[in-house]
């Protein structure tokens, strides 16, 4: 496997079929290599440049090293498959179809950091993923040193945040906890815990087989590798794709057979991400490093195409109302601030608010950053701020006239 093929995580049997069983998985990829010492394994991962796929894009190898080099004591792996992000499907598709690759990654991580327990934390609404991983765990019985536990995450956006996941596993309360202590110091049952997205783990299981060099043969620009992305909102059905990093947003849209003139803006990175006008990003490579430089987000790999006939203000209002509702309700600035932003955006969308509410939203958005136990409010205001940049004229139009220039309608009744 030294070609530049962009099908890696999803290579193998068709996604139209059932989950890949252990037999097929092992004959296709070979068994998980054993006997590699932890430090060379971590070095290989670091050399690959693999970044976390749960949203924040933190280097995977560096995270493993920090835990592998802890003084002593027990440790736990949490494979994060909560996937509460409404615009994302990639984790559930990966878990439903390649469960053994995910388990390989979790087992590899457990061996690398000498953990004594593995927890698969999967959103309970992702039924096919829960079943597929459950069956895969059964198939592995007897072959794995660490006990593997499947915990179904409650439905909710914040339940997948690392400290919320650990809190739920410990106490059945899926609300984030105050840091420090970080989960890497004090996590499941009080032990140092590695919380890693399921796609990150699956990729680690390929890198240990084929090497860091192989990983880096894909990737057109700065960021190496392929990634699972979820394309949504297009004329076609959208769905999960595996793409080479550095592919342009235009290529992704074209592959959905969506005529260029039919899209006005793109939601990049998910509900915590950033809007961008299609003019600005059509030629832009989907490359986390390049996106960051442009103030955009790769996040968990969302490319949401907003059709020309849909109002960006209305789309944003829907997202902000959702994020406000999904606040875990613990921190004042998140609870009150997001509710205020969500309500005001909703009133603007329906033509019931004036220009002063646009100013209010800008003030709230500038105040809320960093003022919560978790990054939920930070993600929410990032999305809001980008919406103001991209749909600013339309926000003003809604405020001044109570009319939407995209749909042309009087919207107060909508």
């Amino acid at each position, binding site marked *: 496997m030294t070609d530049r093929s962009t099908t890696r995580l999803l290579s193998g049997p068709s996604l139209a079929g059932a989950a890949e069983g252990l037999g097929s998985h092992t004959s296709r990829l070979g068994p998980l290599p054993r006997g590699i010492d932890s430090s060379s394994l971590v070095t290989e991962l670091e050399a690959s440049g693999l970044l976390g796929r749960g949203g924040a894009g933190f280097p995977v190898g560096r995270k493993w090293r920090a835990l592998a080099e802890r003084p002593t004591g027990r440790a736990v792996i949490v494979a994060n498959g909560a996937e509460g992000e409404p615009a994302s499907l990639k984790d559930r598709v990966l878990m439903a179809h390649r469960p053994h690759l995910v388990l390989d990654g979790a087992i590899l991580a457990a061996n690398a950091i000498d953990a004594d327990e593995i927890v698969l934390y999967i959103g309970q609404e992702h039924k096919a993923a829960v079943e597929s991983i459950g069956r895969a765990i059964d198939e592995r019985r007897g072959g794995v040193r660490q006990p593997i536990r499947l915990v179904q995450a409650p439905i909710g956006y914040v339940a997948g945040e690392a400290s919320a996941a650990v809190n739920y596993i410990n106490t059945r309360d899926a609300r984030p906890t*105050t840091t*420090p202590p970080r989960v890497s110091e004090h996590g499941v049952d009080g032990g140092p815990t590695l919380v890693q997205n399921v796609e990150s783990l699956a990729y680690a299981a390929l890198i240990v087989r084929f090497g860091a060099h192989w990983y880096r043969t894909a990737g057109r620009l700065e960021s190496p590798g392929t990634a699972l992305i979820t394309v949504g909102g297009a004329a076609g059905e959208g769905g999960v794709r595996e793409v080479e990093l550095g592919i342009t947003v235009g290529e992704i849209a074209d592959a959905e057979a969506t005529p260029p003139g039919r899209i006005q803006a793109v939601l990049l990175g998910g509900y915590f991400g950033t809007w961008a006008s299609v003019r600005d990003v059509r030629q832009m490579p989907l490359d986390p490093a390049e996106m960051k430089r442009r103030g955009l987000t790769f996040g968990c790999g969302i490319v949401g195409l907003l059709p020309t006939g849909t109002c960006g203000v209305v789309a944003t209002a829907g997202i902000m109302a959702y994020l406000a509702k999904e606040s875990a309700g613990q*921190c*004042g*600035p998140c609870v*009150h*601030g997001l509710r205020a932003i969500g309500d005001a955006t909703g009133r603007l969308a329906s033509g019931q608010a004036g220009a002063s509410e646009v100013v209010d939203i800008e003030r709230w958005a500038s105040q809320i950053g960093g003022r*919560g*136990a978790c990054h939920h409010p930070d993600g929410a205001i990032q999305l809001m701020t980008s919406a103001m940049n991209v749909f600013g004229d339309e926000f003003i139009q809604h405020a001044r006239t109570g009319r939407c220039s995209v749909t042309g309608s009087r919207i107060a009744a909508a």
Partner: protein
Amino acid sequence: MDVTLRVDWILCDGYGLCGDLLPDLIDLDEWRYPILSPEPVERGRLSDAQRAIDCCPMKALKLESETVRRRPG
């Protein structure tokens, strides 16, 4: 060592006592939750900051050293 004012947002009840006590150091938002400067507290103000911390009914306010905050993961 530089220290910065920090709030445990889960504990803070938003009555804004800290902001009333130290209006030049701690702003309050319209719901009376504190808005803290990310800058380290000046040495000469440390005792004032400590007074606000002592008065916080929820024990939500604290001084934290920079090194604690910057660690990753």
